[in-house]
């Protein structure tokens, strides 16, 4: 009940802020809520919009798969190998904080325009948090659980599947949730810089051609979709954390 009330309060707050920005900046920068909802509904009924959405989703799918699989694998390896983990963790953390925008020109040169650049943008944003969460989950497994495994005569295989895996799973899910959001962000940025297709491209193209209505509507759709996805993942995350 309070959850519902909180959500409603947040939505109301956003609408208020939106109206405020609209009043301040005028319709050369942003359209008002009502008009945007109407145009967004219209966009959702159009085939060319869905082609762009499809382009974004497929790039996002590849990027997320790479972030998740490679991120978890690297995190496990680094976490299990204590020394390399101790060396890698601060390096990854500082890599994570560098403004990745400085890498874009370089990445464009390497990957060119198109899907692979978008995917690469998604991966550089999304993979590091997955690695870091996995690594710290493995490193922080309580010693007493490993001693318990010995005391209960578990085989190495049983220790891995029945003890290590469930012990690290909640942290990995948290990492994936953050990786999910950042991968999506990376893909959208990639589309703004390095593509002629996708929702990111629609936004930047709308800005360049002063199509305020379309830009605002696409932003609304993107935000709504990512908030919904994040909400679902957060619920999963909470359940995993008992």
């Amino acid at each position, binding site marked *: 009940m309070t959850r519902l009330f909180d959500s409603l309060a947040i939505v109301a707050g956003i609408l208020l802020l939106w109206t405020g920005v609209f009043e301040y900046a005028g319709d050369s920068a942003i359209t008002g809520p009502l008009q945007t909802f109407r145009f967004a509904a219209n966009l959702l009924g159009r085939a060319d919009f869905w082609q762009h959405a499809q382009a974004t989703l497929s790039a996002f799918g590849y990027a997320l798969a790479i972030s998740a699989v490679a991120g978890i694998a690297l995190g496990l390896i680094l976490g299990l190998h204590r020394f390399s983990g101790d060396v890698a963790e601060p390096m990854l953390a500082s890599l994570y904080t560098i403004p990745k925008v400085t890498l874009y020109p370089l990445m464009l040169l390497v990957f060119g325009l198109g899907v692979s650049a978008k995917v690469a943008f998604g991966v550089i944003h999304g993979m590091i948090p997955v690695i870091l969460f996995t690594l710290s989950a493995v490193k922080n497994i*309580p010693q*007493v*659980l490993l*001693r*318990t495994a*010995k*005391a*209960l*005569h*578990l085989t190495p295989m*049983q220790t891995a599947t*029945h*003890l290590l895996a*469930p*012990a690290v*799973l*909640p942290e990995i899910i948290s990492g994936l949730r953050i990786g999910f959001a950042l991968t999506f962000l990376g893909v959208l940025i990639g589309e703004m810089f390095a593509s002629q297709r996708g929702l990111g491209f629609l936004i930047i193209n709308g800005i360049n051609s002063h199509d305020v209505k379309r830009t605002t509507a696409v932003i609304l759709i993107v935000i709504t979709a990512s908030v919904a996805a994040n909400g679902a993942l957060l619920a999963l995350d909470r359940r995993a954390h*008992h």
Partner: protein
Amino acid sequence: MTAEAGAHATLRAVTRTYPGARPVHALGPIDLDLMRGEFFSVVGPSGCGKSTLLDVLAGLSEPTSGEITFEGKPVRGVPDGIGVVFQEDASFPWLSVRDNVAFGLRRMGTDPAEITRRVDYAIGFMGLKDFAHSYPAQLSGGMRQRVCIARTLVLQPRLILLDEPFGALDQQTRLLMGDELLRLWRETSATVLLITHALDEAAMLSDRVGVMSARPGVFIDLVQTNWPRDRDSRIVAEAEFGAVTGRLWGSLRAESMKAIGRAG
């Protein structure tokens, strides 16, 4: 009145030094015969090597020198028949109480009907019936420790090692848990080694109490209590109880001061 005569586990000149840039001589030399069926407690100042003693006796780590046997065989790795309850909370947060308790038996591939029987018994015995479907995060520290005891109990160990299992509990609850431990000891006929820092707990529960020195821990006194086997916490009211705790404190006082001096 001890159950059967004879040593159940023996330690001969056992020491343990933690290697490292500055090696820590944590334990020993320790010589001890744990008698079959006895309730033996170890008291000693914190950091004196009590948990280290439990580790080597359980086969969780190797002694640096010396020999340990359990039921006549040298200890290499954790032997069948030894159950351990650790000082830290070792319950599995991702499993319900029931699944926690059944964990060891399931991994051993025990017959499901037998698992159900033993788990029901252990859950009932430890007073966990109303919490069987709860998760550890929903339980107090004391309840979680009961889960860990039940998880060990279902394996029907012949030697049970407990490392300060009631450390986090208040005095009254500790006395009652002590009664349950006595009941468990009587019903299973197991040999029990209990590590504790509470002198009254050691005095009330044990057939014998070993008093350890400050690190490196060696036994500086062994106190025999002569309680009847069907004792319970009410013996704290008896004069003999006061004499036992008094003797324990007499042995331990100087050592505890050393431990404090080292910390300060």
